[in-house]
């Protein structure tokens, strides 16, 4: 049999159910490989011993009716896990051990999943390269010193390197889809309100959404089915009829209308991305889809809007880190002095930058000019999509304007870093589902992704298109285990 760690989630479940392998064997395989892969720096906190113990317990009393029977899973360190340290990639939460569990992770454990560990990410999910993490850079298994994308960079790295069979990330402006694109994996951001935000360390509450990251589309459909749920504990959780995404998955997309937005042909976009997109359009046609040109006229305003809305929400969400109730405390002469020193020492540069921008745009005299203006433009961006969806069922774009870049290449220029999210940010602003699937490689053999954007709550169509195109694209990962001794 192929190595356990290279099996897809679907294959693992099948083998466990057919008793070809035990949960404990699976856990051992992933732990063994993770131990040999420390150079990737994908983990912040390992939960290996406990994982082995729980997998044995599962094997002693197996329940094969569960959707993730005894499957070990490592998750982004932005999800609060009961009694397991949760850092959000920040020094300020370095010693934080939650006494409660996020709804999304609880859903996974309820279906038989077992926590393997907590994965590195950009600090408070603010970044596109995992370089803002307090716990250091993460290596992309594709090539040495290449960023794995961000903010779910530990997740994409661990997944692509076969250190976990599947994982979850969070996506505020592209933090699932961009790292998936950079590592040749699949990443799905569900519709806003599908997956509960309860217990996820908050970044920008009107944009944050959790979602699956996987080796293939089918695996994402299995995990989405587990994590998508209505939750009273999240005031923006939406109570809608959820599909059985994995059993309803089909490659038959004949007659589906897919829109191609002309505004995504941005200035300076590399020829490789343009030709990838063209190829994608051909694949979609081969799958039976009808291609329709559409316009999303306010696309170029999405990033400036995002860089007002997200920092504004972040500045108020991160006000809670004051050195009093939990997290780091620095000593100070007075209460205010203690606050200021704690926050100065506890937060990294990018987080401080965003708190400052957010505080500024919300401050007296500037609110209307910036925050209100951004909310109005956000409305226009959403209306663009509403109008497009009168004509089409889904939209096809590149996932990112480039392939993965080198560590350090963009870290001194915040704006050039922000441009990474140019194709993903509009989807968050409009609250839509979007998936990135690997679709080819650039001249360096680095993966490139295509993004499929759907109507609100229509994850099924997004998954079906991705599933159908995935078969035609037939992408093969090219990972050599270079980081192992």
């Amino acid at each position, binding site marked *: 049999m192929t190595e356990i760690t290279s099996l897809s989630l679907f294959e693992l479940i099948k083998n466990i159910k057919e008793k070809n392998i035990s949960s404990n064997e699976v856990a051992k395989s992933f732990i063994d490989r993770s131990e040999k892969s420390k150079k990737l720096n994908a983990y912040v906190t390992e939960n290996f011993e406990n994982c082995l113990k729980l997998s044995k317990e599962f094997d002693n009393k197996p329940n094969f009716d569960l959707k993730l029977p005894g499957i070990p899973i490592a998750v982004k360190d932005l999800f609060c896990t009961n009694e397991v340290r949760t850092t959000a990639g920040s020094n300020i939460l370095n010693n*934080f*051990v939650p*006494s409660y569990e996020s709804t999304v992770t609880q859903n996974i454990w309820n279906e038989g999943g077992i926590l393997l560990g907590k994965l590195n990410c950009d600090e408070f999910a603010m970044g596109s390269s995992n370089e803002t993490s307090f716990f250091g850079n993460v290596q992309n298994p594709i090539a040495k010193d290449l960023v794995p994308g961000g903010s779910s960079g530990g997740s994409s790295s661990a997944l692509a390197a076969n250190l976990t069979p599947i994982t979850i990330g969070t996506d505020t402006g592209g933090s699932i889809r961009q790292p998936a694109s950079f590592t040749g994996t699949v990443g799905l951001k569900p519709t*806003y*309100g599908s997956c509960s935000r309860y217990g996820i360390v908050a970044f920008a509450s*009107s944009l944050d959404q959790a979602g699956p990251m996987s080796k293939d589309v089918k695996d994402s459909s299995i995990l989405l089915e587990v994590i998508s749920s209505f939750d*009273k504990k999240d*005031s*923006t959780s*939406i109570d809608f009829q959820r599909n059985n995404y994995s059993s309803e998955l089909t490659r038959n997309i004949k007659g589906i209308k897919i829109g191609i937005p002309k505004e995504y042909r941005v200035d300076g976009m590399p020829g490789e991305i343009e030709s990838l997109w063209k190829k994608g359009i051909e694949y979609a046609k081969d799958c039976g889809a009808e291609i329709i040109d559409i316009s999303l006229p*306010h696309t*170029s*305003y999405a990033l*400036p*809007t995002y*860089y*007002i809305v997200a920092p504004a929400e972040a*500045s108020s969400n991160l*006000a809670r880190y*004051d*050195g*009093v*109730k*939990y*997290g*780091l*405390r620095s000593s*100070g002469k*007075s*209460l205010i*002095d*203690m606050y*200021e*020193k704690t*926050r*100065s020492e506890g937060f990294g540069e990018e987080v401080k*930058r965003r*708190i*400052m*921008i957010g*505080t*500024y745009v919300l*401050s007296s005299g500037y609110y209307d000019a*910036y925050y*209100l*203006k*951004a*909310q*109005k*433009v*956000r*409305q*226009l961006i*959403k209306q663009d999509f509403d109008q497009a969806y009168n004509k089409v069922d889904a939209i096809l774009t590149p996932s990112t304007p480039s392939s993965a870049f080198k560590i350090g290449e963009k870290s001194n220029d*915040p*704006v050039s870093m*922000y441009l990474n999210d140019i194709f993903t940010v509009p989807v968050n*602003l*409009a*609250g839509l589902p979007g998936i990135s699937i690997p679709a080819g490689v650039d001249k360096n053999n680095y993966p490139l992704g295509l993004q499929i954007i759907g109507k609100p709550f229509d994850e099924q169509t997004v998954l079906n298109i991705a599933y159908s195109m995935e078969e035609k694209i037939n992408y093969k990962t090219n990972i050599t285990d270079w980081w192992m001794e």
Partner: protein
Amino acid sequence: MTIDLKTVKHISKLARISLEEKKAEKLANDMNSIFEFIEKLNELKTENVEPLTSIAETTLRFREDKITSDNIREKILKNSPEKNDDFFVVPKVVE
């Protein structure tokens, strides 16, 4: 519009983040380049556009005003940097 050093220092006070002089200068530069990028929004006329405050088109739900958690005082205090019996301890605020 440019953000000067004085503004940066004022904002850092509001954000409760202490800033060294050197860092403040770099931050001013960064913020200016980001705001230059943000100014693009002024190209759009938005007088008659309703602001989008929430993407989830639902009204906020109400619940009964009832305690749902068990006694979790200890759990809550467990992560505090400094505590005394059942209290969080902070630097002295009253002279």
